[in-house]
């Protein structure tokens, strides 16, 4: 698909927003489901990009910046793969190869953000100097510049892919044999597990594992939707919290040590 000038400008703006959010993590313009949909919206290829966004979102579910650790970069992965999907012009059939391209891009984006975060170290020293003068404007300016650098981090690669153009991208995608694209689709179905595993590793305690089991078993009933499962989950959490409280206050009310057998022995 060939793009007009206005579409290209809009793509670069979306990419810029996604890049900013890649570090801010606030509005979530960098999440695949938002970024891919926006790219689809401005290029007119909404349906395919929506499916790509949803699929990538499931893969990226557990990607999060924790502490100083930087997660694989959803921003570059979603923006670049969506542009490639649009340029390739294969529609929804191209989703699985776009995803396979997205993963190495997530790594590339990760390296880029590390570079920008290192540059920001220099910027902070400029802020120190501005602070000594009590200069608010300068500190604000440097902060905004740092944010814009993160935006450019995605906007520039996005512009480059658009510059390469539809022809070469389409040739590259069409050169992929069907056993490869089908195989990648099979792999895509399994890759989701990595994201879940990351999340589970962070949350799991002995206390909450049984709830995982209940969720797993209930999900085998196809007529319960995800919203329905959410309702059951909230109810279970509330019941559990209420019950643990009751146990606690019951013991407190009796004024004993929470050891009924010990009390019987003491009173005997």
């Amino acid at each position, binding site marked *: 698909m060939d793009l007009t000038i206005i579409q290209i400008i809009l793509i670069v703006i979306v990419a810029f927003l996604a890049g900013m959010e890649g570090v801010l993590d606030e509005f979530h313009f960098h999440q695949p489901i938002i970024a891919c949909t926006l790219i689809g919206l401005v290029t007119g290829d909404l349906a395919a990009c929506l499916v790509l966004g949803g699929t990538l979102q499931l893969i990226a579910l557990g990607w999060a910046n924790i502490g100083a650790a930087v997660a694989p970069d959803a921003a570059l992965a979603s923006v670049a793969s969506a542009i490639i999907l649009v340029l390739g012009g294969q529609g929804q059939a191209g989703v699985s190869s776009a995803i396979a391209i997205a993963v190495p891009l997530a790594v590339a984006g990760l390296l880029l953000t590390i570079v920008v975060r290192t540059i920001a170290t220099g910027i902070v020293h400029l802020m120190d100097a501005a602070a000594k003068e009590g200069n608010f404007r300068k500190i604000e300016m440097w902060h905004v510049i740092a944010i814009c650098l993160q935006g450019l981090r995605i906007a520039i690669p996005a512009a480059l892919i658009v510059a390469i153009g539809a022809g070469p991208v389409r040739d590259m995608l069409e050169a992929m044999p069907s056993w490869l694209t089908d195989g990648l689709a099979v792999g895509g179905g399994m890759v989701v597990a990595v994201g879940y595993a990351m999340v589970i590793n*962070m949350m799991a305690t002995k206390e909450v594992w049984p709830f995982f089991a209940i969720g797993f078993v209930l*999900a085998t009933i196809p007529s319960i939707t995800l919203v329905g499962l959410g309702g059951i989950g*909230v109810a279970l959490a509330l019941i559990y919290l209420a019950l643990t409280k009751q146990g606690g206050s019951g013991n407190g009310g009796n004024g004993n040590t929470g050891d009924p057998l010990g009390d019987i022995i003491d009173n005997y």
Partner: protein
Amino acid sequence: MAQELKLSRRDRISIWWRSTFIQGSWNYERMQNGGWAFSMIPAIKRLYKSKEDRAAALERHLEFFNTHPYVASPIIGVTLALEEERANGVPVDNKAIQGVKVGMMGPLAGIGDPMFWFTVKPILGALAASLAMTGNILGPILYFVLWNIIRMGFMWYTQELGYKAGSKITDDLSGGLLQDITKGAAILGMFILGSLVNRWVSVAFTPTVSKVQLDEGAYIDWDKLPAGSEGIKSAMEQQAEGRSLSEYEVTTLQDNLDSLIPGLAGLLLTLLCMWLLRKKVSPIVMILGLFVVGVVFHVIHLM
């Protein structure tokens, strides 16, 4: 003191909005310090008038700071309360302010990460993704709107809470309500994760385990059906009676696994991934590896 210095509601709204950009100049030396100072500027402008005071305030807010970006809000609130006291002549020194910041950022990050990154985001994300994958535009809209309402509401509410409670907030946070929320979120999160693993991790083995010829009457005998639409009607009726469509019953490896519980292979794969993660295998390596496995298994007709 002639007049007490006080932060207006507008100042606090402006600080709340600026704190959205707290990670903007994230750097490897002092992490969120630039964004923190950027957020505090409206307060410093209101509370300090002389150039020396302002410079000193800016410098003390460019110290190291790093936490989950949303739970920075209650810390900002407390710091605002402390700065207000200090500007009004109460002896609050730099150490006290930095102490509060550092003291709160660790434990609060421990609440923010599981709550937002590992509960709200996976749940909303999975819900929205499942809609988007069927081509429903409500998916991304729902995600964007709900996420930002929850985030902005949380940030404003906790910043105000911190500002009003001052340094006492640590008592409120460590006990009671917030602990319940964290635990409740973990329960809900694990429950949803269990169902997501079942629904969305797709591992399908294609090899045929057995092929059994069915008895007469157990399958639809296509040659004996009446012609035309009568035949279609009859075939559908027979199928509704539980007859098989072909005369062979094909059982794949996947059917065998599913008869234990559907999604078992996905569960085992997830457990394997967890184990690999604990062995410090990089998630990127695992993702690329799974794509390779997918292609190889597909080529040898295992999947």
